[in-house]
């Protein structure tokens, strides 16, 4: 099988990696920050606006929209797959780190490690797989059509897409997420209650 070959020019580290990463990071920080403190700072009439934009919008962004923001900036500038993965993972890693830090104030070190695999963080990971898989398929197809990508491969992105969708089903949709949660709790009991 021939290796994929692209004629998309590889721009500087700043343009292809750091700048898209900064955009992704800033949007996350603004939405999360405004949502967590906005209700104290702004008048009551503004709170529904903040709730919709930074609350719901921020949550959707964190879960689903990061690749939608990152890919149009990073892909045409020649970023590698690994760079795109790092960029897209920034909000997920940041949010999860915050949750794990908060958990470490309550649970033991071992429990905190297990907490890192709770539904919240895994769901973000599943969403990331799904979204990145979809974006990879779309962008590879698009640039192939434009003649800037030869020997495009789709198996990896399709696997990521399917894995992500399966994860979302397991974590969020299967009996409203409760089925997975009870398995997770059983795992906890096995590890820490025997």
């Amino acid at each position, binding site marked *: 099988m021939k290796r994929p070959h692209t004629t998309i020019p590889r721009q500087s580290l700043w343009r292809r990696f750091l700048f898209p990463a900064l955009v992704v990071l800033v949007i996350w920080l603004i939405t999360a920050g405004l949502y967590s403190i906005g*209700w104290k700072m702004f008048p009551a009439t503004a709170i*529904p606006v*903040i709730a919709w934009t930074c609350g719901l919008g921020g949550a959707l962004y964190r879960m689903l929209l990061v690749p939608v923001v990152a890919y149009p900036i990073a892909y045409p500038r020649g970023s590698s797959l690994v760079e795109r993965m790092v960029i897209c993972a920034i909000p997920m890693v940041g949010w999860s780190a915050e949750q794990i830090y908060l958990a470490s104030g309550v649970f033991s070190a071992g429990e905190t490690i*297990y907490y890192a695999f709770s539904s*919240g963080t895994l769901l973000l990971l599943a969403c990331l797989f799904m979204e990145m898989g979809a974006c990879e398929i779309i962008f590879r197809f698009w640039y192939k059509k434009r003649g800037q990508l030869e020997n495009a491969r789709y198996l990896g992105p399709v696997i990521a897409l399917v894995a992500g969708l399966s994860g979302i089903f397991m974590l969020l949709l299967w009996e409203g997420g409760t089925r997975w949660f009870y398995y997770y709790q059983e795992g906890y009991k096995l590890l820490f209650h025997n």
Partner: protein
Amino acid sequence: MQTSNIPSKHGMRITSIFLVTLLFIGLLPLNLQGQPADSPNIIFILVDDHRWDALSILDHPMVQTPNLDRLCQEGVRFENAFVTTSLCSPSRASFLTGQYARTHGVQNNLTPWNNNNRTFFEQLKADGYDTAFIGKWHMPGNLPQLKGVDRFITFTVQGGQGRYFDCPLIIDGVETPSRKHYITEELTDYAIEFVERKRNTPFCLYLSHKAVHHQFLPPPHIAGMYKKKAVPMPPEADNWVSWNLDHLYCGLIGPLKRTYRNYMEALHATDLEIGRLLDRLDSLGMSDNTIIIYWGDNGFFFGEHRLMDKRWPYEESIRVPCIIRDPRHRETAGKAAPQMVLNIDVAPTILEMAGLSPLPGMTGKSMLPFLSNVSLPGRDAWLYEYFQDFPYRVPNTQAVRTNRYKYVEYQGRRPDELFDLQKDPKEQHNLMGTAQANQLLPELRARLEALRQEVDR
């Protein structure tokens, strides 16, 4: 001399009088249901996650609870009823044992029930009661060997939480498919079947509903009933408050308003089923000898403090509805009792209602005196405790709640809290670090320590 085997007319009359007298004496202590007149039937109804203010008698802006309102009008509503641990399993064990979680050992939703725990059922059974536990058990480990329970109907699916629809039951150890589509109707059917049984003894029924726990699903004929009603939300909350916290595993990821309406509709459905049970008691002529005790197992946040769920020691979480309708105490019907009563008080109350003494080791106090006089002085402080329950990020907590103040000690990084409940009933202003706190803390800390020692004794 010939003796006749045929009794004389006089002899027959004496025999008849003797037999009638015997029959009369025998029937004297029995009421129409053939029960000892001084031993009332007792029905304890426990509803999951029912917060204290979700009653239409309290002018709740959305939910209609006509049957619970009826209980309030015919009985006493305890307006300061609390749970000592705001979490299903520990709270349920406290209702049964009259003990704190630190004593009965069910400290969270992961620590199992100890079969050596003694419940009020044991005493009631020994005293001749016919007993049944119907509904949610939800304590970790295998199903219990509950001493003194004649009929045990529960469910184990979804970690013991049960399902709202088509929930398989475990009836006296035998897995049994559901007969009714909706769990609250199913449990009420079994409850009614139990009270309808012909018996010569009083009964105690423990009816523990799955509702109104998440996923807060109402039955189809109720679903959408409150769709057009405005949802009252605290200023600090918004419709998406549950999306940005770690409420995924609470099943609370939906918009708060939808969750709220579903909860109220499920509660409305529960109220209707309670009404069906009350109506059946009426039609059987049993209401005059049947005490109804109604409690919530813990409260629930709907965005207050930007929280969902329960566990935290704030009022929305620890305060629950408590109604007792005792037909022997009609003098207080319709009154509200202000005393602070606790879930651990239920077991000694039930035992006293049956004329029995509390079991050794029960920490709770009987509420029965308040049913005849709602002005009697009650406790002036009590201990709240919470033991961490993975993966919920609520630290180990101990608090003292007095009539006016609440002082909370958290384990870990979270700072302690002190609230003046009279001036700040919504607990928005932590007084720690203020001059007022410095003045109050020595006494509150001493009180907390004294309560801990009292419970540990």
